[in-house]
């Protein structure tokens, strides 16, 4: 850790006495992040300068980055290093974007993350496999069910246990509804960022429909812990078909309202068309996935290319953009909501009956009623909730398509009842690397539009 410039107050040679006094010296040290911050241009290496100016990448040749492509003689006049800091209305959480400005043009930018680091991977090593889902579900708080799904699939792959078809289809139903609520929440905050509070009110109203259905099925609006290793926590309440039909019909009808509200609006078009254009090649090199990769023209959707659950048996389209700017990402996400509605309708017809979790005693607890009848059920119940599951030694990587991209879970088991290592591959963490590239010679206003179009969820980024 280099500490050439600990957080002392650099501007101490000002003519006027320092207005904020000594106390702030200590505070400056605490909020300053030293080498993680955007250092002045002459103190940063040429390669890092190139990254911050938008990752000048020449991919065809093997050397991905050409350092001398970074024009180090920029910023001739007075430039300003600004913090679009942790507490900011449009950074979608506690992301701190440090930008160097000349007037309103952004010369270079660097995301500083870690303000919501919760040590979940360390807590994951401390919880048993049965408790693990509660920890993982709080990572990406806009699509908690996808986190639980990827964790449960990884544990089931370790255990090599088969789950009944109804559990698979219930998981697919809940995950698609979660994708709808996540994309609608994105449309709401994207509208709010581009000054359309009506979109925020529309979005929150529709999202609440889905959340109320989740509350009815799982008991909670968010952080459900509903998808667990071995199946799902409880069966769908009877009469769920009409609830889902109502939710899906209402949202399907209201998509046209969003379209009319935003697409025709010249302000929205001016702020999003041609803004944040980035090539598919660059996104692939920066490991970006999800809607921003599909908007750049790459038809890569794990549900179609590497299908999991029962996605082969439902028919849906992968939405691919043409020009890769913010408007395309908006269009891809709204169309994906329509595709998810189509999937949910097919699930309504094809939902199989039967068990909602696997019958393997070592994985799922027996039904509540049977506990006071059979001693064996009581022992299994007790063992599962105290000792938990003990999968064989091994390591496994499973990935699903979350609303933000490829969400992976890398589980290493040493045979005990706690994972030896639980790493979650967060889509927003990789997508955030593409922001400096999208911001090449953009304006401050473009930064807000681009950040909103990348849809980072900071719980996912910092884990």
């Amino acid at each position, binding site marked *: 850790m280099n500490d050439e410039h600990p957080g002392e*107050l*650099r*501007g101490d040679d*000002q003519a006027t006495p320092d*207005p*904020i*006094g000594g*106390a*702030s010296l200590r*505070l*400056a040290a*605490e*909020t*300053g992040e030293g080498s993680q911050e955007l250092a002045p241009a002459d103190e940063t290496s040429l390669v890092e300068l190139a990254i911050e100016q938008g990752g000048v990448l020449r991919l065809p040749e093997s050397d991905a980055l050409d350092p001398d492509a970074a024009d180090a003689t920029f910023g001739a*006049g*007075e*430039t*300003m*290093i*600004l*913090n*679009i*800091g*942790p*507490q900011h209305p449009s950074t979608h959480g506690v992301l*701190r974007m440090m930008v160097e400005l*000349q*007037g*309103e*043009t952004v010369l270079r930018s660097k995301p500083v993350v870690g303000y919501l680091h919760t040590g979940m991977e360390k807590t994951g090593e401390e919880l048993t496999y049965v408790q693990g889902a509660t920890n993982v579900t709080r990572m990406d708080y806009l699509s908690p069910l996808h986190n639980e799904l990827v964790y449960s699939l990884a544990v089931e792959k370790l255990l090599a246990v088969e789950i009944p078809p109804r559990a698979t289809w219930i998981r697919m139903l809940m995950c698609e509804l979660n994708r709808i609520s996540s994309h609608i929440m994105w449309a709401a905050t994207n509208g709010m960022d581009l000054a359309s509070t009506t979109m925020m009110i529309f979005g929150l109203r529709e999202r609440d429909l889905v959340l109320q259905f989740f509350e009815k099925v799982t008991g909670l609006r968010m952080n459900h812990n509903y998808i667990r290793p071995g199946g799902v926590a409880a069966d769908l309440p009877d009469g769920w078909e009409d609830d889902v039909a109502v939710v899906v019909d209402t949202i399907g009808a209201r998509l046209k309202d969003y*379209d009319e509200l935003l*697409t025709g609006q010249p302000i929205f078009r001016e702020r999003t*068309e*041609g*803004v944040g*254009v980035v090539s598919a090649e660059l996104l692939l090199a920066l490991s970006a996935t999800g809607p921003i990769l599909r908007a750049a023209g790459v*038809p890569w959707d794990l549900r*179609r*290319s590497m299908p999991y659950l029962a996605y082969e048996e439902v*028919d*849906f*389209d*992968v*939405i*691919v*953009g*043409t*020009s*890769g*700017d913010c*408007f*395309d990402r*908006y*269009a*891809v996400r*709204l*169309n994906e909501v329509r595709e998810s509605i189509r999937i949910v309708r097919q699930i309504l017809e094809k939902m199989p009956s039967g068990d909602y979790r696997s019958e393997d005693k070592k994985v799922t607890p027996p039904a509540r009623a049977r506990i006071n009848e059979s001693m064996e059920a009581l022992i299994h119940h007790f063992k599962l909730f105290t000792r938990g599951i003990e999968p064989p030694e091994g390591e496994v990587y499973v990935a699903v398509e979350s609303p933000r991209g490829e969400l992976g879970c890398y589980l290493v088991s040493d045979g005990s009842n706690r994972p030896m290592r639980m790493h979650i591959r967060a889509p927003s963490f990789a997508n955030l690397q593409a922001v400096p590239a999208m911001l090449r*010679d*953009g*304006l401050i206003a473009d930064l807000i539009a681009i950040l909103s179009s990348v849809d980072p969820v900071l719980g996912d980024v910092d884990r």
Partner: protein
Amino acid sequence: MGSLDSYLPIFVLLVFGLLFATLSVVASRLLAPHRPNAAKQAPYECGIVPVHEPPQRFPVRFYLVAMIFIIFDIEIIFLFPWAVIYGQLGRFGLVEVIVFAGAVFLSFIYLVANGALDWGPVRRRASGAESERTIESTVRRVGSAGGRAA
């Protein structure tokens, strides 16, 4: 004295304005707790204690925009006295104000032509020209029949 009372409403307005201003300042000084501390006087930068001091010199573009605003602001001020008596001026007043507005509008066209108003780097239009893109037209669908696109 006759001419004086026509100024009475303005005078009353002035008194009310002053009254309201002093009242709110005194009330807030008297009732609100006043606890200055170092952080409150420091500039707010999204929760980060500022370390880089802001530059003293700003790019000239901001100054340009201010000048443009002043031109049209003064134009409006000249319209006020005209608006009061345009009734008696009759046709002459109308022609005169059109000529005045035309002259200022000429400078506006000159400004727009010289690109004083388009701000920041040129917008990188996507491949299509000023196409009227809609949600449907800007995406293509890869159906399951399409299989894995190459």
